[in-house]
Structures are given as structure tokens and as C-alpha cells.
């Protein structure tokens, strides 16, 4: 059984896994210029690596001033949402080979939020909307001495929306949010949904009232951009529609 080893050695000698990829990155540095510009970087990279690896390569080897957020680099912390080839994704969950490396890969900051530097945006308005829907358990009466138990069916009701990592990919893909930052945005509604449909929570009515407002769920135009953008596969538009339905059935 020596043949496979031989094959492997031969293949390794002849074909390198590396290809040359152009990263076209939207650069903005307020300390240098007021204009944002596109800058191209050509790097050698294995197409099975991720866009985040490419950004690391650029930052570590080519241009240390390239600025972007990332923490865990494994799709859990939600720091590195960016607009890659015109679509909001997590740089750490996007493989180079999946986004046509023959053409330049464009990387931009997510839209609808203030760009502070390169790919870093001011997330404060996003988190303000999140805080405004009261994303925490609200109950009345004495605290139980043990866990608040819940049936698997009750848990299943809001399972989809517990997956949110607050990366802002959905909210910053929403055309209503681009034009009016007062709109709560999909992420805040998803996190309200998580508590509205939780059988242990008692403030669903309050949250529904908040989302019934001018800037709440009725501004959703059902464009499904958020569902397409969500790196966690949450059916965001469906969650928004469920909140709408809850609001209507509550009244009639």
C-alpha cells in the first residue's frame, strides 16, 4: 500500500494549493482623509481558507493599518460582520472558494451605521435598539428557589430566535434601516421575539406595545434581506411576521 503515499507526495510537489486572490477593501481613515477609497491587495491564499484569514494575512504581512473587528473568529461572537461581494456575511464563516476568487473580492463595512475606520462601524445605535426592546427575562412575584421549568414544546416555540449573535448583519442589510435609523431593525425584533414567545416571561405585552409603534414591526417591508444575511440561519422575516400576527390577534 505504498502507492497512495507516493501519489500524495507527487501531487504536493506539482500543485500548490495556493492561488492568488485580489481583495478589494473599502478603506477609510479619518486621520488621513475624509474620503473612503477602494484599495486592492493581492495575496497568495489557500481557497479553502476564509475571508478572515485573508484579512489577517493583509494586516499581518502587507498593511498593518487595516482595521477590522474580530474576536473568536469562529462565528460565535458576531464581531466580524461585513459586506463581502455585496452581501452581509461573517468574514470568519465565508470560504474564499465559495465566493468566486477569480474576481476581486470586495470587502466593505456594513451599511447604515457610522464608519469609524476601515471596516469598523459604530454599533451604538444598533445596541440602543436592542436595549429598547428589553431583552431580558421579566417576571412578577417571588423568585423560585429552583429553575424555572419549561416544556420542550414551549422551548421550541422561540428556539430559532435564541440563536442570534447580534452581529448586525440583518439590521445593516435592511433597506428601511439604511434610510431611517429610527426603525428598530430585524435584530432587535428577533430578540424581542425571543422573549415575547417565552412561556416564562411576563412582559410580552409591553414588548409588543413597543414594537407596535411607528418605528416597530409595521415598517418591515418583507424584503427578506435579513433572512438572507443571517449567518446563523435564523428565519428573521418569519420572526417579524410572527410578531405582527401576535399584535393583530391580540386586538381582534
Amino acid at each position, binding site marked *: 500500500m505504498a502507492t497512495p503515499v507516493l501519489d500524495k507526495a507527487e501531487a504536493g510537489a506539482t500543485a500548490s494549493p495556493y492561488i492568488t486572490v485580489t481583495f478589494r477593501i473599502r478603506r477609510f481613515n479619518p*486621520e488621513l482623509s475624509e474620503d473612503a477609497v477602494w484599495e486592492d491587495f493581492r495575496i497568495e491564499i489557500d481557497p479553502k481558507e476564509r475571508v478572515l484569514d485573508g484579512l489577517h494575512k493583509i494586516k499581518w504581512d502587507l498593511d498593518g493599518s487595516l482595521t477590522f473587528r474580530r474576536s473568536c473568529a469562529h462565528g460565535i461572537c458576531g464581531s466580524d460582520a461585513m459586506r463581502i461581494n455585496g452581501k452581509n456575511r461573517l468574514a470568519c464563516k465565508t470560504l474564499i472558494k465559495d465566493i468566486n476568487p477569480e474576481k476581486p473580492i470586495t470587502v466593505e463595512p456594513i451599511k447604515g451605521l457610522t464608519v469609524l475606520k476601515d471596516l469598523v462601524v459604530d454599533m451604538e445605535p444598533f445596541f440602543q435598539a436592542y436595549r429598547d426592546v428589553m431583552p431580558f427575562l421579566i417576571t412578577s412575584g417571588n423568585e423560585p428557589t429552583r429553575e424555572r421549568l419549561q416544556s420542550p414544546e414551549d422551548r421550541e416555540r422561540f428556539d430559532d430566535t435564541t440563536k442570534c449573535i447580534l452581529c448586525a448583519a440583518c439590521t445593516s442589510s435592511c433597506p428601511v434601516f439604511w434610510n431611517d*435609523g429610527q426603525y428598530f431593525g430585524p435584530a432587535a425584533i428577533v430578540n424581542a421575539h425571543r422573549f415575547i414567545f417565552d412561556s416564562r416571561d411576563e412582559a410580552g405585552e409591553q414588548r409588543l406595545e413597543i414594537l407596535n409603534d411607528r418605528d416597530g414591526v*409595521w415598517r418591515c417591508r418583507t424584503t427578506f434581506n435579513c433572512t438572507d444575511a443571517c449567518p446563523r440561519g435564523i428565519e428573521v422575516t418569519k420572526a417579524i411576521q410572527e410578531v405582527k400576527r401576535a399584535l393583530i390577534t391580540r386586538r381582534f
Partner: protein
Amino acid sequence: MSETTTKGIGEVENVSLYDVDNPAPVIEPPRKRTKKTPKATRGNFEMYGWLFMRLSGIVLVVLVLGHLLIQLVLDGGVSKIGFAFVAGRWASPFWQAWDLIMLWLAMLHGANGLRTIINDYAERDNTRFWLKMLLYTATVFTVLLGTLVIFTFDPNIR
């Protein structure tokens, strides 16, 4: 270069206007949410607006397609339309009611749709207010004029 000198910062050509202590202005998104953003108001106006769009839409599909079919396709098509044709139709209360309902639903449906678009896209408070005032004036005028004509229509007018 002229701009550089007027701002009085860069003395030499190609020197950036901005540095660490004097960064360029960032571009803020329109109407961003802050701590001071007004809290929720009570009231179901937006919900009723949303529901009205769905329900009136369904009714309008029947009314408008029926209207177009009768006016433009059946029985001679568009060439038959004239003063006499309209007078004949409006002699019947059924067609009066049809046209009246269609007028009101279509105008309110369209006005609410435009209100939504103005709310979404007009960034400045003033622009938004005046565009909406223009919209409401036009809607009220058209609806009232149309209603007046349907109710006071006189086939023997000279």
C-alpha cells in the same frame, strides 16, 4: 489647493488636512437611534394602516380588474366610452356604489402607500412634513371631488 489655504491648515501642497488631533468628519447615517429617541407611544394607527393595505388590496383587485374589463374589453371596448355611456352606468345605484368604493379605497390605499414611502425616504423633518401635507391635500381634494361628482351627477347637464 485653494481649499487648503482657505481652511488655513495645510501650507504645502499634498499635505493632508487631517491628522490624529484633527480627524475628518465621519458620515452619520440618517436619523440614527440614540438614548433620546422617543419611547413607544400607545395607539394602533400603524397596525390599522398595515391591515387596511392588505384588505383594501384584495378588494381593489376585484374592483379595478372588473372596472378595466367592463370599460376597455367587453362590448366594443374603449370606443364605446362617452358621456352617454357613463350617464347610463351611473343611473344604476350598483355602479355608483362600485365607483364610489373604488375611488375611496384606491385613493386611501395609494395615499397610505405614498405616506409610507415618504416616511422611509424623506430624511429631513421639514421635507417629510411638507411632502405629507401635499399628499394629504391632494388626496382629500380628489376624494371629495370624485364623491361630489358621483352623487350630484346630472345626465341632462348642458
